[in-house]
């Protein structure tokens, strides 16, 4: 049995210890907001927060995630400034990559509350969006940054 702390809740899961965290989150915990896109840590769809940092859950064996605080898209509050900004700027298209994008943006703003365009591009370049929502992602991060903790402007 492996013990996980996901979105503030403790879970005991019976899985092979080398299973990527991604598949445990999706299949065992039923939190399907964390997406599979490549399985190689290239596309960013599976991004979760581990100890506040954006990590690729497809690249972390579940045994190595024990004892760490994991936050998935479902654990980011609905009124979080980043989520509010995502709605205000109407970022989503197909939506598959957006949970990973949002998690990366949350981590970025924690580290740099007032990021420049270059900061955003650097932090977000590992999150691929086939619909091409990059421009609105940039807007949304700026929108979120303008009102930290207070919600985005709508």
């Amino acid at each position: 049995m492996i013990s996980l702390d996901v979105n503030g809740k403790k879970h005991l899961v019976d899985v092979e210890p080398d299973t990527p965290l991604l598949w445990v989150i999706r299949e065992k915990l039923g939190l399907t907001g964390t997406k599979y896109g490549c399985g190689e840590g290239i596309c960013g769809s599976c991004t979760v927060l581990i100890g506040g940092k954006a990590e690729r859950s497809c690249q972390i064996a579940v045994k190595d995630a024990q004892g760490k605080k994991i936050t998935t898209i479902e654990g980011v509050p609905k009124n979080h400034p980043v989520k509010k900004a995502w709605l205000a700027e109407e970022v989503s298209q197909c939506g598959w990559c957006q949970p990973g994008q949002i998690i990366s943006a949350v981590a970025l703003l924690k580290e740099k509350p007032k990021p420049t365009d270059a900061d955003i591009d650097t932090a977000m370049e590992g999150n691929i969006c086939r619909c091409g929502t990059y421009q609105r992602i940039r807007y949304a991060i700026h929108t979120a940054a303008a009102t930290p903790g207070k919600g985005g402007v709508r």
Partner: protein
Amino acid sequence: MSGIVKVSRREFLATSALAGGGLILGLYLPAADTLAATLSAEPFKPNAFIRVGHDGWVTFIINHSEMGQGTSTALAMLIAEELECDWKRIRLEFAPVDPVYNNPAFGAQGTGGSTGTWTEFDRLRTMGASAREMLISAAAKGWKADTADCRAENGRVIHKRGRSIDYGKLAERAAKMPVPKEVKLKEPGSWKLLEKPMHRLDSPAKINGIAEFGLDVQLPGLLTVLIAHPPVFGGKVKSFKADKASAVPGVKKIVQVPSGIAVAATGFWAAHKGRALLEITWEEVEWGKLDTTEIAGNFAKMAMTPGTVARREGDPEHSLGGAVRKLSAEYVVPYLAHACMEPLNCTVDLRKDGCDIWVGTQSQTQDRNAAARVLGLKPEQVDLHTTFLGGGFGRRANPHNDFVVTAVEVARELKRPVKVVWTREDDMKAGYYRPLWYDRISAGLDENGNLMAWQHTIVGQSIMAGTSWEPVMIKNGIDATSVEGAKDIPYAIPNILVDLHSPRLGVPVQWWRSVGHSHNAFVVESFLDEVAHAAGKDPFEFRAALLSEKPRHLGVLKMAAEKAGWGKPLPAGIARGIAVHESYGSFVANVVEASVDSRGKVRVHRVVSAVDCGMHVNPDTIAAQMESAVAFALSATL
């Protein structure tokens, strides 16, 4: 909201069935920012697209696939504009397969070819208006009032003397009202929603991670299946050993299916590990040694020979031969994967008497029918449930129904619920692709730099050959999609020849976002720039002069140029380019500002787009689609 409880999807389905709404086969999509549903019955079902509940919430049945293009919001706007319902109390469900939900342009249920909004524009508004009139009649009857004294607004019927009643309270009685034979649609000037930038109804579910895509479907006892696809297109298994793969904990069964070897396991990771340990010997196949360099080489030779004529105007050969200035260029664009962010997948629950399929598809009727054919069932015994699509771009409307057929073949072997998943590598390596195209194009100028002759030879596989679309789309040896955007170039050129070679090869090809236009616009507009340069003319002015009879092309061309500041100085090292094209009734011009660094790397600094798509519904979605199209195009060209 009172009366709202959190329910799981399964509970919602069960509840809805009990509530007399009929079994809801579509996906429940919350319009609010919680996965919440009223548990009230929906007694008023005026037509196949609308249900009204006791609580005043309305459910719209969405018959086009939502893959990011915003169709679910646009279609909801069409209904809501006439229904006069409360925009904050709307639920969306994806339609089951039924002829009533057919795409009017296809005669089958499906999404593609930029047909969603315009084909539904009148139908859905009429559905909304008809339901509204029934609600008004019900209210008037209850009040013993004249319907002419009643109007509908924001989910209520209001009498001119001030009393009003919520749609929910009217639902039961409205169901007993006669369906109006004719309804009057609102004049554009009185629209409240249409042509206004509306927030998407699917965004809250998507950003909170609760929108259900195909890959997110879970069923009791579900096995996850990965297929070992052949290393060469069309390859067949000669023999295989599964001892090592079977020993992986979690691997339940390994079976051969027509498309390869299927490894079924309790989860993705076990199936993935098992698949890697398979020992498979593949048959040699006809196309085994072919590579893209050889294909392009063969196509280049073909491009030097006359093809099947798609268009001939004037005397192009003679005119080209006699030109004062003649120039030619060759263009080759590679096979391209659609690379949807959500890898392909399909979930099947096959029972003796029927089958349920959950899939993010653009091609409901054909996928359902193909599954029935493979299983020996009647089409109506197969219930296909459309989920959200994590990207489509044409790939999820496969003319051979590949990802659905494979999944039902696996289900037939395993006799338990299966979710067949393509890994990213499968998605890229196992087809289908936009074809590789080889274009040879020549132009002739007269002594004043006027474009007198245009000769364009196109070489590439037909995406329609061998599909059910072939009889419609291939006429006189010309696949209309191979030459769209090239045959119909808008420029006033007196002598034109466009011809086509459609070699047959074993590489699986399929439509890709914007289909023939994606490569033909690139080739035509790139070459036209070469011609303008050779003529010593400004590329904007050169185009504008050739488009004097094409007001919509000219309109977007001028607007893009104006907004981009065409002709104004740019920083050193940055240059501008301009292009214009029409596809599927929309006219678009782009001005691109780009630079090339010392290593030849192209960087795009700014793109200014002008679009004339005629009547529009949600302008913010159109802006989003233009942004999306620019990014998609850059992914193919840089």
